């Protein structure tokens, strides 16, 4: 059951070979095959649309009031593709190589190469759907740079790229709804998987308006439910983002891979107080033009504008001259933490660094003056023109910053600090995106497959859409071709009854506690444990403590949680309670995984394993594997190792110097 099913042959022909030889399902049979899709973000919506177009009977579920609200909508900066429109040396191989290296040699080569191969098709598809990407005056598409690369391959729509891509996929999905190929279940939450004879055959979902539990049959089930960053309570994820669907899959036998790989994004608006409910990202694209610095003097309390140029430490440019402000996220985050921990942080909390646009504003202003042949103009005029250019590129981000902080980022530098943003770990999947349970697939952020131990910017959107538009239509067909003789199984089958009873039992248990503390109380406590001991830096002692603390917190949760209202009504507190219950289990597994991996790689930084100058020190001899955990009852997991083999990208110490 533990075979990655990577096709034989040279890396750059594996996917062509696979497509040429996988089984197909004829159109008449497709109409009788039902596919359930959980989540309608980029992966789920693109899969639902594409499978609907092929003629499968698709049922798609989202907990929000519309599929258009999935959290992919909030992705800001852009989407990578190896188009080489800029003639700057890009290629499929280069994108593949950057991604494997960016992931600190902890991703599977074959999957990443396929991702790079289909990246160009994604841009074509989105443009055809009417996604309004940024364009140059000649009418062709514009590109910008992102971290961890030296080419310009990122396509974007201001700071709202995720929104535009998701609305494209959502439109395609709604078109299939209108055509009757997709049935959409809004405000529904999947609460268990139904397995019959070892195969995934359906789900139990709760109608969030009526509270009714529903049974749905499917020949295959696709988990496209996103990441689990909210285990930290504070993250850039949406309030509703959760691990529940993926966790139910885990409890039904799907392995969970590399749970400790979490991405802490370097540029987020810092925490302002205890009331904070979420953190807001300031796109990595800002690092194209923003320069990151702290004062050279410790505990400097002067205003940013009062600190002269020579007393500023542009520490990323100093430490990493080759990539400068555009080093990958894990590197930039650790560097910010290092400066703040050493006493150079800024702002009232001292847990922040500056992201400064003054130089970019002046530079763009001068370009405009030249372009418009304005001759000698005042500095004020140059700055004014420069601000207009910056506003066109990043206007919505600057506005958002101003609303949240009450400060004007055109006039003074932004204050930023790292925050939990993305989870590279997720359900273990093979080359076909199948979990270890036959018929159960996982796409997008919910799976572990493409980003190794650190994801490069603008690659999440690429992966979500690659999985949904261009991979799953082939791979799920290869499975369903053998299912054409399986008639729809009636939902009074004992397996459905049993799964529904499990769900009912959990809901009853949540109400039965009748305790004294709200769900958020426990969620915040869990988040603090995770951030302090399984966050940006981890060590053995802290992780061992965290595991005990989480166990105790979980016991307290079930004894003392208070869930108001009833099960048979719209009850957001009940929804939260179920999700936090799952986070309380996942958190423990994340710490176990972090404890097991006694090396530093990408976003996983074990203090015991660093180079002399504080960079992450991998241990390829002992840890060049995917850690896939099998659930064996509460708090018990068995570790399976999938060795990673590198044929094209030979692992080296990652250097951005």
């Amino acid at each position, binding site marked *: 059951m533990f075979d990655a099913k990577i096709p034989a042959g040279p890396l750059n022909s594996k996917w062509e070979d696979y497509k040429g030889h996988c089984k197909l399902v004829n159109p008449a049979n497709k109409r009788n095959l039902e596919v359930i899709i959980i989540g309608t973000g980029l992966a789920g919506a693109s899969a639902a649309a*594409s499978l609907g177009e092929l003629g499968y009977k698709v049922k798609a579920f989202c907990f*929000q*009031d*519309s*599929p*258009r*609200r999935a*959290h992919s*909508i*909030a992705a800001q900066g852009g989407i990578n593709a190896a188009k080489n*429109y800029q003639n700057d040396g890009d290629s499929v191989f280069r994108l593949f190589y950057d991604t494997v290296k960016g992931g600190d040699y902890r991703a599977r080569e074959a999957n990443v190469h396929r991702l790079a191969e289909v990246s160009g*098709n994604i841009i*074509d*598809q*989105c*443009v*055809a*759907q*009417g996604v*309004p*990407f*940024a*364009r140059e*005056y*000649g*009418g*062709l598409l514009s590109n910008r740079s992102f971290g961890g690369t030296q080419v310009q391959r990122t396509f974007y729509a201001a700071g709202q790229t*995720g*929104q*535009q891509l998701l609305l494209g996929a959502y*439109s*395609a999905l*709604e*078109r299939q*709804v*209108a055509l009757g190929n997709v049935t959409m279940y*809004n405000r529904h939450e999947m609460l268990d998987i139904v397995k019959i004879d070892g195969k995934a055959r359906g789900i139990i979902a709760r109608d969030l*308006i009526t509270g009714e539990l529903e049974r749905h049959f499917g020949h295959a089930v696709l988990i496209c439910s996103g990441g689990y960053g909210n285990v930290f309570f504070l993250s*850039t994820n*949406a*309030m*509703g983002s959760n691990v529940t669907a993926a966790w139910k899959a885990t409890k039904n036998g799907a392995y969970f891979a590399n749970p400790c790989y979490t991405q802490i994004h370097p540029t987020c608006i810092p925490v*302002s*107080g205890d*009331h904070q*409910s979420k953190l*807001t990202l300031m796109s990595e694209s800002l690092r194209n033009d923003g320069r990151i610095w702290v004062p050279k003097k410790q505990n400097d309390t002067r205003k940013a504008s009062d600190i002269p140029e020579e007393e500023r430490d542009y520490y990323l440019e100093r430490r990493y001259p080759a990539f400068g402000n555009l080093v990958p996220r894990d590197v930039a985050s650790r560097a910010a933490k290092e400066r703040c921990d050493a006493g150079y942080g800024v702002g009232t909390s001292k847990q922040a660094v500056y992201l400064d646009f003054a130089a970019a504003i002046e530079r763009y202003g001068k370009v405009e003056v030249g372009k418009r042949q304005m001759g000698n103009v005042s500095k004020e005029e140059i700055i004014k023109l420069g601000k207009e250019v910056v506003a066109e590129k990043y206007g919505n981000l600057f506005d*958002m910053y101003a*609303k*949240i*902080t*009450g400060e004007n980022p055109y006039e003074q530098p932004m204050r930023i600090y790292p925050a939990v943003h993305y989870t590279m770990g997720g359900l273990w999947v093979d080359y076909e995106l199948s979990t270890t349970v036959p018929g159960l697939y996982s796409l997008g952020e919910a799976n572990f497959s493409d980003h190794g131990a650190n994801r490069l910017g603008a690659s999440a959107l690429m992966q979500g859409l690659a999985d949904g538009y*261009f991979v799953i239509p082939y791979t799920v067909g290869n499975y369903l071709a053998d299912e054409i003789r399986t008639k729809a199984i009636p939902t009074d089958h004992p397996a459905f009854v049993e799964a529904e009873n499990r769900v009912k039992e959990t809901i009853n248990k949540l109400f039965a506690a009748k305790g*004294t503390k*709200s769900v*958020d109380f426990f969620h915040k406590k869990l988040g603090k444990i995770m951030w302090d001991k399984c966050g940006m830096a981890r060590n053995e002692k802290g992780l061992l403590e965290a595991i005990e603390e989480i166990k105790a917190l979980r016991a307290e949760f079930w004894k003392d949680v208070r869930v*108001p209202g009833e099960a048979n*009504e*719209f009850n957001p*507190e009940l929804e939260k309670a179920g999700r936090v219950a799952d986070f309380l289990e996942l958190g423990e597994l994340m710490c176990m995984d972090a404890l097991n991996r006694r090396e530093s790689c990408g976003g996983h930084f074990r203090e015991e394993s660093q180079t002399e100058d504080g960079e992450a020190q991998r241990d390829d001899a002992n840890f060049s594997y995917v850690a896939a955990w099998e659930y064996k009852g509460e708090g018990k997991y068995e570790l399976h190792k999938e060795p990673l083999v590198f044929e094209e990208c030979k692992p080296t110490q990652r250097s951005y110097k």
Partner: protein
Amino acid sequence: MEHYNMNLTLKVWRQKNKNDQGRFETLQAKNISSEMSFLEMFDVVNEELINEGKEPVAFDHDCREGICGMCSMHINGRAHGPWDGTTTCQLHMRAFKDGDTITVEPWRAGAFPVVKDLTVDRSAFDRIIEAGGYISVNTGNAQDANCIPVDKTKADLAFAAAACIGCGACVAACKNSSAMLFVSAKVSQLALLPQGHPEKQSRALNMVAQMDKEGFGSCTNTGACEAECPKEISLTNIARLNREFISAGFSSEK
């Protein structure tokens, strides 16, 4: 920014479900920091209600960064509250001062029935998109993305229209509960791009027909929608929709 704390009186709409008649309830919000977002203020109030053994106020929210379009509160008579170009989740408490009374209602529109308290059902918007808010292109059909250059001005206008987050503030702000700004934003985005041309007539006709079927009112050009839109979608989109609709009516071959 100067930080301060405040005590507030909230008059909040409470309604158990769509069949309940509903009423205002007065709640106290104590010790609210000016740095909180409006929804974080509600988190504090709800935490208090739960601790007192009462039912928290149900409201829709998700991303809390102004882009998912889920939050939807009518605050002191304005959709999304007092700040222009801002969603409820991005409204911050420094917009208020100590001792203020704040009235909070759900979106009011026949086509948006109340689900519970401040939560409404906006599925009518999905059905309008189903009627034609797309370009009919199956996965795999596309040619190279740079094959068709697009005039940058038009591409920028299309993007400005596509920035709509589908929150429904335009409907809530309109005395007629018209959905014209929402519909026109999608029709404009796709009509402005060459990729959207083949279907532009049927799109305008079908989306408007569905809008009427859902029970949204007519547009009388008062402009309240544009004034309250958190993404500042322009009224000129409605003019463009009218042009598309009328010319489609005259020249459609169907």
